[in-house]
Structure formats: C-alpha cells, structure tokens
C-alpha cells in the first residue's frame, strides 16, 4: 500500500474525530428543534457556559468574584478548595438542568405560539446573555480544563499500526475517548427515546403538540427535559473541546460550524447530525491537506459552508431530514 493512502486515511480519521465535536453540538440543536421547533442559536454558548462552570466549580473559583471585588473593594478569587472531576461534572449537570428550568420559565413560556423567527431571536438574545453571564461569573481568561481524560498521541496505536502496515498512525487519545463518549451518549439517547415513557412523550411532542396534550403530556415539562438534555450534551461537548484546546470564548464559535452540519444532516434527524458532523469534519481535513496547499490554505474556515451550500441546492431537506412538500 502506498504511503499516500495511509496518510489520507490518517487525515480522515483525525477529521472524523473533529467531526464528533460538531456532531455533539448539532445533536443539541436537533433535540430542541424537533421537540419545540426552536432553532437554538445558543447551543454553542451552552457548551461554553457548561465548560466555564465546570472549570470554575472544579477549581473552587468564587462566582462573580470580579463583580464583588469591584463593588466592595475586596480581593476574592477562590474558595481554596478543589473538587474531584466527577463531583464537578455532576454539579455542572445540575446547573445545566437548573438553567433549562429558568429558560423555560422566563423565556419559552412567554413565547408559545410565536413565529419561529421570534423564538430564534430570543435564542440569539439568550446566547449573548449567557456569554456575558459566563464572563461575569467566571472571568474571561483562557482556562485549562483537566478532568483526567487521557491526552497525547497514542503510542500503542502508533506501534501496532507501524508493525502491521509499516506506517504508524498518529491518533490523539483524547479523540478516541471523545469518540467513545459521543457514541455512548448517542446510543443512550436513542434507547431513552425509543424505550422509555419519557422518550415516547418526547417523540410525541416532536410529532404533534395538540395530540400530545390530549394524551396528558405537559409540553412545559417536555421542554424543560429537552433543554436539560441539550444542556448535558453541551456539557459533554464542552468537556471534550475544553480538554483539547482550553476553555475560551471562541468555543461558542463551534456553534456556527454546527449550522453546515445541520444543513447536511437535516434539522430533524439525530443520525443526520452525527453523520453530517463526521462528513464535515473529515471533508474539511482532507480538503485542507490535499487541496489546501494548491489554493493557499486556510480552507477549514469556509469549506464546511461551501459544502453545505452545494448540498442545499441539491437536497434542501438534508441527508436524513424530512422531505419538504408544499401543500397546495
């Protein structure tokens, strides 16, 4: 086998891993979109907020320290304790659930039956609010996130593949963990939605609000539930992304990459979000490595959008989305 082929394979594998991250954010989008028809612009910021909160809790940071110091002239910064990663993650999940309850109570509840564009605007507002809140609560500096996930190139894989193929694959161990966690998350979500009473209620609400009400389902409860799940999916994405490149505000920009992912996969399909994420992740890496040098590089900034545009022309409902048929 030619060296070139293995290299391409390695690049695609790395791309797939990056794609998982896009897929996770897109997954949060799809969940909320299906259940409530809301295009949640804030999904990426939820991931940022979750990661900030996680680091803050883990390191015993005092929330709003800057604000308190500015008002009272104190110089607080840390409680002086640190929390084990598991505890901090569990607490962050609780915070994300609390956030879902607040979002339902103070935003969604007041906007039922509004035009989708109004709801979309509300989530833009929410995104900026959460970004600001994250800043005021935990500070704007780049933070290191370490929940004990393995990091660095896996030497085992390098050695084994070198012995087998004569070509050592460089795969980041964090990417492998991210893949496994993402797979486990998607499988549990599928099981939850197919085989539990709440999963069935969730699918019912996604299908027809009026019918769901008539069988005794509380839409508000389902909305809180689905925003909590989206918050926890965001937490997982935040952990992976933060472990890889530190917790910084540019994290919320991955939300924008989720948009082409959704165009590719369809806004209403969970498998679509996953496959779309993988295709974009892999496509942009391959393109950058093989075509990039010929056209001056930095193709990762726009490749996803162009691919999505091309897709939009030929298959507007996405790979797995429901066919849009206008009734006349």
């Amino acid at each position, binding site marked *: 086998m030619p060296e070139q082929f293995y290299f391409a394979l390695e690049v695609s594998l790395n791309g797939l891993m990056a794609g998982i991250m896009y897929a996770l954010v897109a997954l949060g989008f799809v969940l909320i979109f299906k259940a409530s028809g809301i295009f949640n612009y804030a999904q990426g910021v939820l991931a940022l907020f979750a990661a900030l909160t996680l680091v803050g809790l883990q390191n015993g940071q005092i929330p709003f320290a800057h604000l308190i110091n500015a008002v009272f002239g104190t110089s607080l910064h840390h409680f002086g304790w640190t929390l084990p990663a598991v505890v901090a993650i569990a607490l962050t999940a609780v915070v994300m659930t609390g956030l879902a309850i607040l979002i339902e109570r103070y935003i969604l509840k007041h906007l039922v039956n509004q035009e989708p564009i109004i709801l979309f605007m509300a989530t833009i507002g929410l995104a900026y609010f959460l970004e600001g809140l994250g800043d005021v609560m935990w500070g704007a500096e780049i933070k290191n996130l370490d929940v004990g996930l393995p990091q660095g190139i896996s030497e085992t894989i390098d050695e084994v593949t070198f012995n087998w193929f004569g070509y050592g694959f460089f795969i980041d161990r964090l990417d492998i963990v991210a893949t496994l966690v993402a797979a486990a998350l998607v499988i549990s979500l599928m099981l939850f939605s197919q085989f539990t009473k709440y999963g*069935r209620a969730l699918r019912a609400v996604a299908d027809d609000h009026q019918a769901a009400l*008539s069988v005794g*389902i*509380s839409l508000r409860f389902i909305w809180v539930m689905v925003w909590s799940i989206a918050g926890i999916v965001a937490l997982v994405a935040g952990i992976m992304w933060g472990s890889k490149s530190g917790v910084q505000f540019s994290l919320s920009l991955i939300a924008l990459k989720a948009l082409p992912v959704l165009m590719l996969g369809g806004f209403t399909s969970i498998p679509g979000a996953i496959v779309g994420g993988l295709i974009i992740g892999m496509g942009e890496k391959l393109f950058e490595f093989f075509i990039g040098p010929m056209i001056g590089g930095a193709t990762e900034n726009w490749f996803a959008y162009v691919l999505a545009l091309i897709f939009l022309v030929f298959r507007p409902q996405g790979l797995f989305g429901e066919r849009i048929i206008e009734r006349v």
Partner: protein
Amino acid sequence: MNAPSPDGYTTADGRSIGPVLMEMKNITLRFGGVKAITDISFDIREGEIRAIIGPNGAGKSSMLNVISGFYVPQEGEVWFRGARRPAMKPFQVARQGIARTFQNIALFEGMSVLDNIMTGRLTLMKSGLMAQALWWGRAEAEETAHRAEVERIIDFLEIQHIRKTPVGRLPYGLKKRVELARALAAEPKLLLLDEPMAGMNVEEKEDMSRFILDVNDEFGTTIALIEHDMGVVMDLSDRVVVMDYGKKIGDGTPDEVRSNQAVIDAYLGVAHD
C-alpha cells in the same frame, strides 16, 4: 323529556345509567366578537352515550374543546365527578380521565400504530424520570404490562395487521380507528369523540358504530360524541343535545329530539329571526 332521577335511569334497551358524571353550567364561549357557545347547560351521566348534534358551525366542536380543556369559556362552570373543575390545561384534563379524538385526526404521524396507542397510556404509567433512568428493570416490567393492555385494545378494534405500520401511511378510516384506540388506551372515565365516522363509507361506519357500542358495553365507558349522520345518532345515543348557532335548541332522547319543532326547523334551514 322528564328529568331523570338523580341516581340515574334505565334505557330502552335495558342498560342502567348512573348519576351525573359531567355537568356544563351556563357555558359561554367567545372568539373576539363571535359567540361560539351561548349560555349552554347540559349533563352527561355515567355509562351514557350522549350525542351532540347540530348544523355546521353550531359550536359542537367548541363544546368538546371546552370539556377537554382546549378552550376556556368566558362564562360558566364545568363540574366533573361532583366537584367544580378549576381552569385546567388540556393535559391536566386528560390526566383526570377524559380522553378524546379530534374532528381532523391528531395522531403522531411519524410513529407506529403501536407507539401511538402506547402514548395513550402515558398518564397511567407510574415510574418517574429518575426511576426510569436508574431502575431499567422496573421500567421495563411496567412497559411490558402496559404493552399487554395495548395489545388487548388492538385485538378489540381489529387492527392487528397494522400494528407496526407508521400512522402516516394509513388510509383515513384506519387512522380514525387508531385514534379511538389511543383514546381507549387511557382507560378513560369519559370518552369524547368528535365526528368519529366522518368521511367513512357505510361498512366503515357500521364497524365504528359497533366498536362504540362495545366500548360502552364492555368497559362501561361514558361517551360523548358529535355526529352528523342522524341514523347513526338515533341508533347509538341515549340522549341528544342539539345546538344551532351556539345555542342549545333541544335536549332529550332521540325520539323526543326528532319530534322537536325547533330542531326540525334548524335542520330544514328555516330562516333565523
């Protein structure tokens, strides 16, 4: 008609009807300037099949929507099982044991027939969100038990052959039947049917009539239904409320209603003053 005694009455075909289950008192419902219902009162008794009839736009569906909580009347009181019902959301009404079908069918089109009917049992399922996540075994046992009940309903309504079919692919008549199955799955105290036979052919109508009678007979379910086909109404119902332009113009046994002059006028299209 002569008012039935508080404890109930016996029908012509010998079924015994119980005390009042649901009572609507002086209901008025407005949409902006339009009065859909004007000061209507009537009751539904336990074990009864109660029909609501009237010309198009009379306010029949609106009345059903008031009972099931989808519309909130501006005036009047709703009494259920001897207590005044506070303002309630539709899902809360459903949890009280009132199930319904819709004039325009509201099913979960993307889900299978079986799944659709299973949603009918959501209100009867006990285990909470955490329990479902943590004690998978128990949740599964509960699911199995409910599944068995649903299979009984499927047999009862003779829809075994479409159990796994996505509802979106079914013809109209079968959709109506699946919607009835989902409502029955809730084991309701009161079942509301909005034109269960609309758009059906004669054979389908006969089947549906038989199912409605059987449900009432075998499970003792109280039923309120809206229907345009007078033959069907006369055959099925114990008592009939007649509405026209949002007002009640008749209330009694099918025979009494049929000979009521106001009802005859409404149906023959006599000009309103």
